[in-house]
């Protein structure tokens, strides 16, 4: 196993608000790490710092042992070109899909390949079809996103990210905006990815997914990692009062014995 993402002493504040207060996290190749925590705990911000949708205020992120940014005068400096190149290697899926409504499903999946990676149209097209087949939506290739269900949109968004051949995938509450009956198909796709050995960092409220799929679970509270470990251990034997309260809040979740 090799280290894919390494985060050390990460801080992020918005104005006076300190959201992340020193996070250390290493993600190994092929690992699925689930980030739990109540709203405001900083889990989404942490995820967004990994691909620099938000720039950390302090601390560092490395991909494959390569430090992102350059240090100058005690502060990290990031160039746009460096971050763009980084983001092609880190896929991200959002809560609200963020598909491009003026492009067909296939064009959505081709866009980054052609515009950013400069792949040829035919190569991008065949890659797009492969990924759409992978998420079970090859037959929707020529539809516009507006004609798809929420679950289908989210699977297209996953295919769009996969088509860039990323080293790691970030999932930011990807089932939170879905109708309950559509959650399953997205989780199934994610599980399949995990089984295929994709490295994944997942922010979710789906404790069942965390329990069955994650290799490791992290519980964030107030900008810090409060608990960390195997899902069976963290979810069944929480060590802190906070974690117990958090789990009590998810009464629908029944752990299998």
């Amino acid at each position: 196993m090799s280290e894919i993402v390494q985060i050390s002493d990460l801080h992020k504040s918005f104005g006076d608000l300190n959201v992340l207060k020193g996070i250390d996290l290493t993600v190994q190749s092929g690992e699925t790490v689930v980030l739990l925590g109540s709203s405001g705990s900083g889990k989404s911000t942490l995820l967004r710092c990994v691909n620099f949708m938000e720039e950390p205020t302090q601390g560092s992120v490395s991909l494959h042992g390569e430090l992102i940014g350059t240090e100058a005068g005690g502060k990290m400096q990031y160039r746009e070109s460096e971050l763009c190149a980084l983001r092609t290697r880190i896929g991200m899926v959002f809560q609200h899909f963020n598909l491009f409504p003026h492009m067909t499903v296939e064009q959505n999946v081709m866009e980054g390949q052609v515009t950013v990676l400069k792949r040829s149209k035919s190569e991008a097209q065949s890659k797009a079809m492969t990924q759409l087949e992978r998420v079970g939506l090859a037959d929707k290739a020529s539809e516009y996103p507006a004609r798809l269900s929420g679950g289908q949109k989210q699977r297209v968004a996953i295919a769009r990210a996969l088509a860039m051949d990323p080293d790691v995938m970030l999932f930011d509450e990807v089932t939170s905006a879905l109708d309950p009956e559509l959650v399953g198909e997205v989780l199934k796709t994610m599980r399949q990815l995990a089984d295929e050995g994709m490295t994944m960092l997942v922010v979710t409220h789906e404790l069942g997914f965390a329990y069955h799929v994650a290799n490791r679970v992290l519980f964030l509270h107030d900008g810090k990692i409060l608990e960390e470990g195997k899902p069976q251990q963290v979810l069944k034997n929480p060590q802190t009062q906070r974690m117990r309260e958090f789990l009590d809040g998810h009464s629908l979740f029944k752990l299998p014995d």
Partner: protein
Amino acid sequence: MVEWNFLAVFSDFDLLMIGLSNTLKVTALALLFGVPLGLVFAVMRLSTTRPLSMAAAFIIEFFRTTPPLVQLFWFFFALPILIDVRMTPFIAAIVTFSIQSSAFFAEIFRGGIQSIDKGQWEGAKAIGMNYRQSLQRVILPQAVKRMIPAFMERSIELLKTTTLVSTVAYADLMFQANDLAQKTFRPLEVYTVVAVMYFLLIFVFSQLSIAVERRLAQSGESTVR
């Protein structure tokens, strides 16, 4: 009772047609330069670099708050003193109306760009696009559709404003009308015919713009003003 006599007007109608074609030429050229310039000003104004956005804001506000006729006089009479250029009425008209309409187009572009959901920028960013790629491939194609009605309205305003070039002796429809009125001693008929010509021209464009707006509304596309 006044006796209308259109004979004199229609025997020299080709004079008015030349004017009409010049009016359309000035409008088209001002659009050709004004629209891309407007996009540049809009992007500058939206920039997070403060000097850039402040400079754009100043240019936009200045050209929106000063009368177009003053701008035209300035470019025609004053600019050649400041920089060594040979100014013709035609060039002055193109320069004035390109910049003047670009200030208005900039605000339309800005409104359109800002109306696009932030998630679209994030979606583009997440697949590695830089600012220019995101704007070009993802944001503008969506924004432009919403801007079309405002765009057409502004273009019609521009068409009306081009009448001002007659004051610096460019042979647009208005100028040709003045010319013809003096030649024929028939101002009533000449100016009435010219008013009708302008009306028909602008009315057709207005109706077109209303039809387009309705089409967009039917397809569920929101528009910006």
